[in-house]
């Protein structure tokens, strides 16, 4: 009985945490190449969740099918974000860009509140409450799908970074912008690519959010914070680490939410965030371990 609950909580945590991980990978790429703390990431995810919701409500498009439109659209929008919001200030340092990201977050939140009202939305499909039973453990179908999407997204990004010239250039710029510039890599191109991928991943996370959670225009900020915690746990510039960081955070939250009352779960996750930053700022799954 208790073992069952422990395992059940573990699985719930893993399934949900993978989504934090995906958002964190996006943040990691954007921070890695441009040193921009893109705090609006979570709010963009909520915007995508609204898009997914709208496609389902108005055109009856299956949310998983909507990925076919949402991911390419997110990639394009990501390129636009860089060109419009950050291209001119990319060299200005992380403070001006943080302010821009913050302003953008506020703009998006208010836009969504006007356009979609602030009532909580939840996407109800025939399989929303369906659960698979595996070895006596219940696995929510939509959460399982969110997990699969997270794994696929991570896999694609990992492959891109390891095996394509542009991906290698992204890693090079993340390691040392000046050296990368010297050998003829054009920073704007690489920044555009990083932003596209970051927002592309927000597209995946947005669909995952829409199918698993009730959301309102203001849910994004907490999501951004959680992704940053995942990033801190996983270590900057480490794709697989960021995914694990997200999963770990999901598990911690899952247990904390069960064993402690409501608000304490968040207290615990923020405390973990600070402790990791204080004592192991390179992340629990830092690069040294990753490269072995």
């Amino acid at each position, binding site marked *: 009985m208790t073992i069952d609950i422990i395992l059940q909580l573990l699985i719930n945590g893993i399934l949900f945490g993978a989504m934090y991980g995906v958002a964190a990978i996006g943040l990691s790429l954007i921070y890695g190449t441009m040193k921009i703390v893109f705090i609006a990431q979570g709010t963009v995810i909520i915007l995508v969740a609204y898009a997914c919701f709208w496609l389902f409500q108005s055109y009856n498009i299956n949310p998983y099918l909507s990925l076919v439109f949402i991911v390419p659209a997110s990639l394009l929008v990501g390129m636009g974000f860089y060109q419009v919001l950050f291209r001119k200030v990319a060299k200005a340092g992380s403070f001006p860009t943080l302010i821009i990201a913050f302003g953008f977050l506020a703009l998006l939140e208010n836009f969504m509140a006007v356009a979609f009202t602030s009532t909580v939305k939840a996407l109800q499909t025939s399989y929303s409450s369906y659960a698979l039973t595996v070895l006596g453990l219940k696995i929510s179908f939509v959460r399982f799908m969110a997990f699969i999407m997270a794994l696929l997204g991570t896999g694609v990004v990992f492959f891109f970074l390891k095996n394509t*010239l542009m991906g*290698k250039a992204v890693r090079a710029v993340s*390691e*040392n912008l*000046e050296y*990368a510039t*010297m*050998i003829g890599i*054009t920073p704007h191109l690489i920044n555009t690519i990083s932003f596209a991928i970051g927002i592309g991943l927000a597209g995946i996370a947005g669909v995952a959010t829409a199918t698993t959670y009730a959301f309102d225009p203001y849910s994004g900020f907490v999501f951004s914070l959680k992704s940053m915690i995942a990033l801190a746990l996983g270590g900057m510039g480490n794709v697989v680490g960021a995914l694990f960081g997200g999963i770990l955070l999901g598990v911690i939250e899952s247990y904390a939410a069960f064993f402690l009352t409501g608000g304490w779960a968040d207290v615990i996750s923020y405390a973990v965030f600070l402790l990791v930053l204080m004592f192991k700022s390179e992340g629990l799954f830092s690069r040294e371990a990753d*490269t072995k």
Partner: protein
Amino acid sequence: MASLLLKVTDINVFHGDAQALWDVSFQVREGEVFSIIGSNGAGKSTILKTVHGLLSPASGEIEFLGSRIDGSTPAAIVHLGASIVPEGRGLFSTLTVEENLELGAFTKRARAFTKETIQELSKIFPIINTRRHQLAGKMSGGEQQMVAIARALMSRPKLLMLDEPSLGLAPLVVKTVFQIIATLKAQGVTILLVEQNIHQALGIADRACVIKTGKIAMTGTGNELRTDPEIHKAYMGTLR
């Protein structure tokens, strides 16, 4: 006489408010090794960075292959055919040797020949084959310098700029580095070399100049400068 490859005319360069270069002029001819020597902080690296487009001159002109490049981006300059091995080698330590080399051919002109260029370079740099999948950060300084030079050659440059290639290397390794410079010269690569190691730098140079607190103090053939009593007094005694 061989044609001019690089023509630097009266450039003035600032680091913030401080002037680093004063009316610096020099010319590099096709196929030669041109050395810029001088002590620490004299402005040697600043010259290379300016030619490479990392710094913009406040005034003056830089011509490469007949076209103005002052104010161009490094990417455009690499594309035109000049590449640099920065001081400290500038490898990406978390990338493998092969990945570093591939990125050396990032510009469109070179990208199509990536595989062939790596193949060709591995004849001069055997380390490319033996350490291909090793992380650049886990190699010795000498090995890194070889990979750094090879990476700069990946763009198939006409002009190779080397910023203190002997810095921090053991004497035997320095010798190997200069042997490679000689090999490259024999293959027709024009080389602009910045060095504190004056014996080596003047020994290999067709022509050279001395830079002193941001100004060119003297220009001549490698031999002329090597036998110049002033230079002997100023550098040779202290920098052996």
